[in-house]
């Protein structure tokens, strides 16, 4: 037997959530939690903070459901925007950014050298992304990593598309500069990716 709410639209799930259906809310969570958590993780750099941000973003659907207007943006976009706002709030409170916690080693890598190279590349990319200003970092993550279109990114960050393009351009310039050796030696990264 399948999940009872798996075939429902987001609007139906929201209505059912508002009328007290717990499983409808859990279905919303299952649909969008990975995207929201990934975004929160790369913005905060810390798993525990990402968990809190993700939790608060979904909880905002319960505490103030009228803030989400279906005609304006999709539910995933709304939740990413909520995660973004939570993260900015967290940054204002902390007044400093938390460094990335070291992620667990990739279990897929069998060759130690390959594992080391992958680790080094991941570390370099992570450091470069974290060096970006939060406003630049968020557009890079949403556009390049999450694959959202410019209009959705603009909706999430609360800016117009032109501003997003400018931020994206500046962020790319900086990343290219900081990751110059990896950008120019493109074969290096892809070769061991293909071998996996």
């Amino acid at each position: 037997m399948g999940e009872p709410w798996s075939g429902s639209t987001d609007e139906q799930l929201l209505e059912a959530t508002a009328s007290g259906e717990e499983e409808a809310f859990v279905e919303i969570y299952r649909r969008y939690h990975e995207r929201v958590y990934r975004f929160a993780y790369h913005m905060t750099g810390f798993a525990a903070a990402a968990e809190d941000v993700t939790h608060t973003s979904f909880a905002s659907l319960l505490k103030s459901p009228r803030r989400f207007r279906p005609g304006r943006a999709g539910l995933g976009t709304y939740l990413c925007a909520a995660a973004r706002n939570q993260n900015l709030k967290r940054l204002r409170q902390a007044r400093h950014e938390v460094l990335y916690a070291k992620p667990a080693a990739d279990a897929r890598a069998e060759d130690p050298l390959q594992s080391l190279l992958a680790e080094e590349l991941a570390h370099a990319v992570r450091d470069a992304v974290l060096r970006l200003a939060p406003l630049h970092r968020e557009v890079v993550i949403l556009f390049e990593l999450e694959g959202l279109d410019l209009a959705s990114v603009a909706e999430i960050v609360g800016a117009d598309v032109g501003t997003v393009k400018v931020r994206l351009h500046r962020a790319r310039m900086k990343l290219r500069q900081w990751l110059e050796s990896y950008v120019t030696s493109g074969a290096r990264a892809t070769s061991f990716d293909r071998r996996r």
Partner: protein
Amino acid sequence: MDVKDAFDKRDERLGELLGHLRTPAPPSTLEARLRMTFRECRARRVAPARAWALIGLAGVVVLAAAGVLYVARVSTPRMAGGASKPIVTPLSLEGFEPVLRPKLARLKDGERP
């Protein structure tokens, strides 16, 4: 590639590098935490509704009691045979004699009202 394309298109090489970013799986406790939050919110939403329902019910009971008291103490019982309440005019004391006759008699005898 013109300037517009440079803005609008994804940077393949950069996207590939960003693909090396690792994201740990969301903790399994997150769903449980959200379930708890959902139940708390639902309880908080239901509690005021219940309180208002109780207040409303109490109001109805008070009004009903007041109505019963009014009928019992103030309004005049219906006449025998189902006739409507007597209309009190200066000329007609029909139905009020048991109360008013002795009073009128005492007033006639000189009692001050």
